[in-house]
């Protein structure tokens, strides 16, 4: 996997928007907001198929949490979800 480290200087409206995105809780960190922003650009310019990207990213995020759910746990969580909804 390619890795890039960037130091980005932001000011004015761009910095304001970034701060607001994190303040409102859409993203946990500024880095996360920037990553998602770049992916959106990739989508807009047709560089990636969004659903496949999110499919893979969701798998990676689940793996990152280290949590595993058994089939029964999934069923139980689903039932709880349906009842609460």
């Amino acid at each position: 996997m390619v890795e890039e480290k960037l130091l980005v200087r932001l000011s004015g409206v761009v910095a304001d928007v970034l701060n607001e995105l994190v303040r409102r809780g859409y993203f946990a960190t500024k880095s996360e907001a920037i990553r998602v922003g770049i992916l959106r650009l990739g989508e807009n310019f047709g560089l990636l198929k969004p659903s496949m990207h999110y499919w893979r990213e969701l798998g990676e995020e689940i793996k990152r949490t280290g949590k595993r759910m058994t089939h029964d746990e999934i069923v139980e969580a689903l039932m709880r979800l349906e009842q609460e909804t």
Partner: protein
Amino acid sequence: MSKKPEKAYLDSMIFIFGRLEECNSRLVLFLAQLGEFKVVTSELVIEEVERFFRENFGRQAGYISRRFVEELSSHIIRRDEIKIEIDELKGKIKAKDLENVAAVRHENLEYLVAYDEDYEEAEIKEYITPKEFVKLFRFRPYDIEY
């Protein structure tokens, strides 16, 4: 031989099991990503999927799962579009299934892909299990129904 479906409504469990287990729901999602059929979902499906992943794997997983469902869907049915169908179905099926069936009827869809015995008991004609749905594409499904 059955004709390949062009469109289908996917219940939230398809997205949840499809991401977490090697099963027919995953095959359904792969077929959708390959463009074999168009996915229809609803606000309810998006909310349930997001909530499931957020509660079990964190906020970021919830957000990504929502984006996945949104991007895979060719059409997302809003609640205010299905009020009439919901009123018609009230009392005939369980409350938890109301919105899904109403959305399917509103869009006149042939298939509601899910694995839930309540749909079968309520004799929802559009209901099809992931296993049976995969077969329509002449794919060899896993033995499990979901």
